[in-house]
């Protein structure tokens, strides 16, 4: 997938682009699942929320129309997930609705939990952005450059070993690493602005 902004993705969704739908599922399913879990939903319920949230995004639902001027996409997405999760919790049988049951099933309910949930969401979002930026930068650099970066940064391999493996100098390994990092930084910035 080429590097696209979320705004572009949402526009493409609005035009019924099927590739955009696949991208949407790939990008946001893990984030929605995480948030739904923190709201105390069971696995089957999480799947329902994922489907409903993705459909909401796909349809550009009037209730949840994303307006960039009104806030970041990450907050918009969080709001939809929370609303759908609460809908499901409301529909549970009365004996399943009490706090003990919810807490036992992993819902984060206290104020400390709330801070933890927000921190988990922020961290997941940062990782999501980082992953997207890396996907975006990959086609922009040579295969060797990206491999060197990946071996050093993701696999935590020793630079000398990477240099020997790829048949390049250690200086080239560092150059590759920083070339990718510089580009990733720029993409992360633009994604953060976009989201």
């Amino acid at each position, binding site marked *: *997938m080429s590097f696209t902004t979320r705004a572009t993705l949402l526009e493409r969704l609005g035009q019924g682009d099927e590739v955009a739908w696949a991208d949407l599922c790939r990008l946001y399913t893990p984030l929605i699942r995480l948030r739904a879990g923190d709201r105390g939903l069971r696995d089957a319920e999480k799947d329902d929320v994922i489907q409903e949230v993705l459909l909401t995004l796909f349809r550009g639902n009037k209730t949840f129309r994303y307006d960039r001027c009104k806030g970041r996409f990450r907050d918009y997405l969080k709001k939809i997930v929370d609303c759908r999760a609460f809908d499901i919790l409301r529909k549970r049988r009365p004996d399943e609705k009490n706090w003990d049951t919810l807490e036992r099933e992993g819902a984060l309910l206290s104020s400390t939990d709330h801070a933890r949930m927000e921190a988990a969401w922020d961290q997941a979002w940062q990782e999501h952005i*980082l*992953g997207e930026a890396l996907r975006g930068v990959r086609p922009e650099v040579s295969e060797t450059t990206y491999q060197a970066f990946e071996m050093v940064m*993701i696999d935590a391999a020793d630079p000398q070993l990477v240099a020997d493996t790829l048949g390049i100098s250690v200086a080239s390994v560092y*150059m590759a690493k920083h070339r990718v990092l510089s580009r990733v930084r720029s993409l992360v910035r633009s994604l953060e602005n976009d989201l």
Partner: protein
Amino acid sequence: MKCLNEYQLELLETDKAGVRGYLWRRHLDVCRDCRDKAAEIRENLTLAAAVKNARHHLGAGRERATTSGD
């Protein structure tokens, strides 16, 4: 002296240059291009820390991408 490369600048930034760093630092003091590049390396290293923290997640993503033929 030639301008410093990423390897030298990273060693300087992370205090791992040892005695070699003495000459490199002197060059850095007089070369604006290298100072700019050093600032960039510094920012990259901050990002590198975030990448390291997310390594597990990013590695898993790479495996998924590989297995799905993406």
